[in-house]
């Protein structure tokens, strides 16, 4: 543990009574509550904190805020491991563990730093040209190493133990940024009674005022915070970033609820993702100080001037004892004065000639040496800055010059001017425009509902920021109908006179000094993009700023050009002889700062990734050991294993019971739709391909409905309960689609029909009683229904009771056996199910799950979701004869299109292994065996058999080298082991359909390199005559 050698004896906003211990790269340090990781490292004299993205150059802390491009660290460990976090935004807490990134074996001795000696090899776009040879596949070899060498921190695969929340919030006015403008805006809006949300990324409100030590500023902040606390309609959200602005005045916010502690308190989330909907928004997001580009401007110890000022004033850290301030504007002078006051030896290098006397006098009185009309041509040092070379500079005619003098220093504080933070506006499509007078990008035409205030609006002084914040709030209050009380005044306090003494002189780059080998001049520090990369890209034709961005990676990813954007535009403008306005800007994209995927997911993980639908009998299934599976959102019993049983064994037992005695399965997930109205029969007649108008009361009918484009949408049974009342069932998979189609048709296509449709899937529990003894069991449970074949024939419907439970019974079958679907109000589902179980035990009743259900229906050749998959027609399914020839129906016209009526379309068939060997797999591609090739020529092209047609594009090769060309002649849709037949069987579609029955084809499964010979059969494997249904 070392001492805080750079900690000032007094001052700052840190809590000196609360020391904090933390570790960086395994070494223990101390700081104080109120420190950031960056300030605490600086206090401990740590200046080397990371390695750069591409060249592995040593990097130090560059800023004090969210714009930090260098000091990205990895926090915590195991499941809480978080890479790429700016150390400047990490609040220090006891036990904090941080590691530097992108280095091996250590930060100080990074083996990959050798890459930095070959910058030309890794120049802009190097991956498009440098590593392309000698063979076409060479890049695949290089890529592995390049990706390993470049980049930032590594993610973890350990599960995150913390919880994340989502939340919604609403307000009249969202104020982003709690600096002076934001505070003033929130106060003014709050006074008028508006519901205000004030968002601040920092741990406390104040913005730039937190880094000031002059009394007028700190007094104003104090009084503003006091008034803010008294306003009941203003909600202040600190540690919260507004990272995205979206349609409809919706904003994405990330609240770091517990990032400032080691472990979140019990039950509390670590982060909360807010979606805020506001009527108006004021962006008081301030400005970010701009670097100046010069040789080796990335050495540790080079820092933004405002950051150095912030470390001295807010965190009581002296970031350098011998400081050079390099600037082109007045704002850096207050930083110089504050650093001098903190005890540093300070020199100021200003590119501007003829500085006003007042400024010279201020510096003289403070004991600060001044170098006007000069620039820093180069920073010198190895792992930290040791000196800077000063060159004479004429901004009107910048040219390389000889070094005039060398100044020793351990800190170079740079200010190239300021750039308003307009990322949220840009996300809404508002292009910033260049203000040449202030040398900054300012907001262009504002989107409706938005206002900009303070530094973000280009206001430089405290008074101007406060004034603009209040003005924006008053306008918002008026737009939102706020109370007249909004006509207030700013919080009390005498504000300082901060008028600039001299105008800024725009400067983007300083030419490298004559007589010295030029160092790298970085524009985008985070992505290692230099001025020479921009020049190279321009020479290669990337003159558009959008192309430049993508070719060089400048301003991309989580940095979003916070410190680099305008300098890059200035350099490109200079290269191309255009103005910055003509060059234009790129588009900032959300998020403004990185957002953890965990926060975006919130609680929607694991079982709650999607909601789960449970049947009324779900608890019974669980209590009786069912293995569960998901079908869509439904959680259904897959099979009910007995001790020691495998899935296949259980399925075989359950299936056999249905074929031999009686089985009971849960079909509550079937879609159920109540159709009522005087025109219900006509409606059904239109939506089903077959007729429904003459369906008698008390009878059900199997129906198929098409989409308007002629493709089959779904099938199911519809029962006529009474003259104008029908009960429709759909497949589980397509229930929602069917309901949506019916509602659309009634509302948009046929509003004249008096029909009401209601989803009653939730209302009814459904269970199927299937098997030769199903009628016996039903007779033990249900009363009030004549269960004889005459009383309740196949496709009959009746109502009765099971005890005091009202039930609806349909004699329909999915299994091919005599079967009944029994429906009861959902709350009684469990009781009815139990009743069947109790009274069926001696009959050998077996409960069965969806695995057996699937096996039974494949044996019977019934189509289900795998066949009704949105591409098949009636004819494909072998159901063409169902279509009525005397009445129109939805989809009927388009079903006759040439492509859908093509007789070569694959049609439903059964499939089985030709010689009992191999594996049947759903999804396998069926291929004509006469088109199989046996081997390949040396160049890889297939040797086709003589009968084979001309090869198509796609190629499948089996493990033995043989294979098929083209896309096959069909596919396998459903596969099962048939307990009844004691072999694997399948359903599938094949061109030629029934005409191929008895022939053999190849089933290719490219994923596993399998080629299996299968025989085409009829799709009905069991009871093709349907005798069991009626037996």
């Amino acid at each position: 543990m070392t001492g805080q050698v750079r900690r000032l004896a007094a001052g700052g906003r840190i809590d000196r009574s609360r020391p904090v211990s933390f570790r960086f790269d395994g070494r223990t340090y101390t700081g104080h509550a109120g420190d950031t990781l960056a300030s605490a490292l600086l206090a401990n004299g740590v200046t080397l904190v990371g390695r750069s993205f591409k060249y592995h150059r040593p990097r130090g802390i560059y800023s004090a805020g969210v714009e930090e491009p260098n000091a990205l660290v990895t926090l915590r460990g195991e499941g809480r491991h978080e890479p790429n976090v700016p150390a400047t935004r990490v609040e220090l807490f006891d036990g904090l563990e941080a590691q530097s990134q992108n280095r091996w074996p250590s930060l100080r001795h990074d083996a990959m730093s050798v890459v930095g000696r070959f910058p030309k090899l890794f120049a802009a776009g190097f991956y498009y040209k440098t590593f392309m040879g000698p063979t076409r596949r060479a890049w695949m070899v290089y890529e592995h190493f390049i990706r390993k060498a470049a980049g930032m921190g590594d993610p973890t695969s350990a599960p995150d133990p913390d919880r994340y929340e989502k939340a919604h919030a609403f307000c009249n006015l969202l104020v982003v940024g709690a600096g002076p403008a934001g505070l003033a805006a929130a106060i003014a809006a709050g006074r008028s009674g508006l519901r205000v949300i004030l968002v601040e990324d920092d741990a406390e409100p104040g913005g730039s005022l937190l880094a000031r030590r002059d009394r007028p500023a700190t007094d104003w902040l104090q009084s503003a915070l006091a008034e803010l606390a008294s306003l009941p309609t203003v909600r202040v959200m600190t540690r919260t970033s507004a990272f995205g602005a979206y349609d409809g005045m919706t904003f994405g916010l990330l609240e770091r609820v517990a990032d400032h502690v080691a472990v979140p308190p019990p039950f509390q989330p670590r982060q909360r993702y807010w979606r805020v909907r506001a009527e108006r928004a004021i962006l008081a997001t301030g400005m970010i100080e701009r670097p100046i580009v010069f040789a080796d401007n990335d050495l540790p110890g080079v820092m933004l001037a405002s950051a150095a000022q912030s470390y001295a004033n807010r965190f009581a850290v002296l970031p350098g004892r011998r400081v050079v301030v390099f600037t082109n504007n007045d704002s850096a002078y207050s930083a110089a004065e504050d650093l001098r006051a903190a005890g540093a030896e300070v020199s100021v290098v200003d590119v501007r000639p003829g500085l006003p006397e007042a400024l010279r006098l201020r510096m003289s009185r403070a004991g600060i040496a001044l170098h006007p009309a000069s620039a820093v041509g180069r920073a010198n040092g190895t792992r930290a800055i040791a000196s800077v070379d000063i060159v004479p500079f004429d901004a009107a005619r910048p040219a390389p010059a000889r070094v005039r003098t060398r100044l020793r220093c351990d800190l170079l504080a740079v200010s190239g001017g300021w750039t308003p933070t307009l990322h949220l506006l840009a996300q809404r499509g508002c292009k910033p425009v260049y203000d040449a007078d202030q040398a900054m990008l300012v907001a262009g035409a504002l989107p409706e509902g938005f206002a900009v205030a303070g530094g973000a609006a280009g206001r430089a002084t405290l008074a101007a920021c406060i004034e603009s914040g209040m003005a924006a709030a008053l306008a918002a209050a008026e737009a939102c109908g706020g109370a007249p009380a909004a006509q207030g005044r700013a919080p009390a306090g005498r504000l300082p006179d901060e008028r600039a003494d001299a105008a800024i002189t725009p400067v983007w780059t300083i030419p490298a000094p004559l007589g010295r080998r030029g160092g790298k001049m970085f524009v985008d520090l985070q992505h290692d993009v230099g001025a020479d990369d921009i020049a190279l890209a321009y020479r290669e034709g990337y003159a558009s700023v959008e192309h430049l961005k993508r070719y060089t990676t400048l301003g991309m990813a989580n940095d979003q050009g916070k410190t680099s954007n305008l300098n890059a535009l200035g350099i490109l403008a200079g290269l191309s002889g255009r103005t910055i306005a003509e060059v234009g800007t790129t588009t900032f994209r959300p998020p403004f700062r990185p957002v953890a995927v965990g926060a975006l997911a919130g609680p929607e993980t694991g079982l709650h990734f999607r909601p789960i639908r449970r049947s009324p009998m779900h608890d019974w299934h669980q209590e009786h050991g069912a293995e569960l599976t998901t079908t869509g959102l439904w959680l259904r019993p897959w099979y009910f294993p007995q001790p020691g049983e495998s899935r296949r064994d259980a399925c075989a037992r359950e299936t056999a019971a249905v074929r031999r005695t009686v089985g009971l399965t849960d079909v509550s997930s079937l879609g159920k739709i109540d159709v009522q109205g005087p025109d219900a029969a006509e409606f059904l007649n239109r939506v089903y391909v077959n007729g429904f108008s003459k369906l008698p009361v008390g009878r059900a009918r199997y129906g198929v409905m098409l989409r308007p484009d002629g493709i089959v949408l779904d099938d199911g049974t519809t029962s006529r309960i009474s003259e104008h009342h029908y009960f429709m069932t759909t497949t589980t998979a397509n229930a929602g689609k069917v309901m949506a189609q019916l509602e659309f048709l009634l509302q948009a296509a046929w509003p004249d029909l008096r029909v009401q449709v209601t989803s009653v899937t939730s209302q009814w529990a459904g269970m199927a009683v299937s098997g030769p003894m199903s009628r016996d069991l039903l007779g033990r449970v249900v009363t009030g229904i004549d269960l004889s074949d005459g009383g309740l024939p196949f496709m009959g419907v009746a109502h009765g009771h099971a005890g005091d439970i009202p039930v609806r019974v349909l004699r329909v079958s999915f299994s091919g056996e005599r079967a009944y679907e029994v429906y009861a109000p959902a709350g009684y589902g469990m009781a009815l199910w139990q009743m069947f179980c109790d009274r069926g035990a001696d009959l050998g009743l077996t409960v069965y799950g969806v695995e057996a259900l699937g096996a039974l229906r494949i044996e019977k050749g019934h189509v289900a979701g795998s066949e009704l998959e949105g591409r098949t027609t009636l004819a494909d399914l072998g159901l063409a004869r169902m279509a009525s020839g005397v009445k129109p129906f939805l989809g009927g016209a388009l079903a006759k299109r040439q492509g859908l009526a093509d007789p070569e379309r694959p049609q439903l068939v059964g499939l089985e292994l030709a010689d009992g060997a191999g594996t049947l797999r759903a999804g396998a591609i069926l291929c004509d065996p006469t088109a199989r090739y046996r081997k390949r020529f040396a160049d890889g092209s297939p040797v086709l058999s003589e009968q084979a047609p001309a090869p198509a594009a796609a190629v499948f090769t089996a493990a033995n080298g043989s294979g098929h060309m083209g896309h096959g002649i069909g596919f396998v849709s459903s596969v099962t082991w048939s307990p009844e037949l004691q072999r694997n069987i399948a359903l599938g579609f094949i061109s030629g359909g029934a005409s191929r029955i008895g022939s053999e084809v190849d089933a290719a499964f490219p994923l596993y390199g399998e080629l299996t010979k299968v025989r085409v059969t009829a799709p009905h494997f069991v009871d093709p005559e349907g005798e069991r249904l009626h037996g």
Partner: protein
Amino acid sequence: MAELRSALAAAYAIGPIGVKREPPAVVLREHAPQHLIQLSGWPDSFGSICERITSHLGVRVPVDCLTASAHEDVTVFRVGPTRLWFVCDAACGGRLRDFFDSFDVRDGVVTEIDHSRTVIRVCGPEAQTLLNRGLPIDLEDGVFPEHVFVQSVVHHVPVLVHRLPSRADPAFDLYVPREYAVTFWEWLIEAAAPLGGRVDRGEA
């Protein structure tokens, strides 16, 4: 009598939730209305149906799909242009059914949906905070006053949210499709944990 089983039967655990807080920030309970009946009418005759409802049941049919109306034990939600939900207890249910039995299909159609929804009551000083963890609706008092209801989505689950009248703390009834009840309940309990709450015995 066969057991009428709640969809939450296995998931319902009476007691505190999450952070200890007294009084609890939110109180959750299942509230099972005895009857939930849907009446759907036709555009040309819906006005006269509404008049019959008002004269027979004494309850005004809401003019919009945002505000429920109530009279004695009957609450009416207009869930569609010509579609109403009637919620009432057992005593009132018989009267309602008798009334609807007098309807002809030309007047409208009645659909029994009382088993289709699980009703969860959320009340307490942080009820709005809890619901806004998932509900994208502004529940602030002035915007979402008593008897206002919305049909929205929480955690991808369709939910009808009704603000109850005359309560010291904000209170809401949530009508959740029965098959989603457990998943929604689990989400609710999880979301309530940081606030501190309690599950009370369900109300029949």
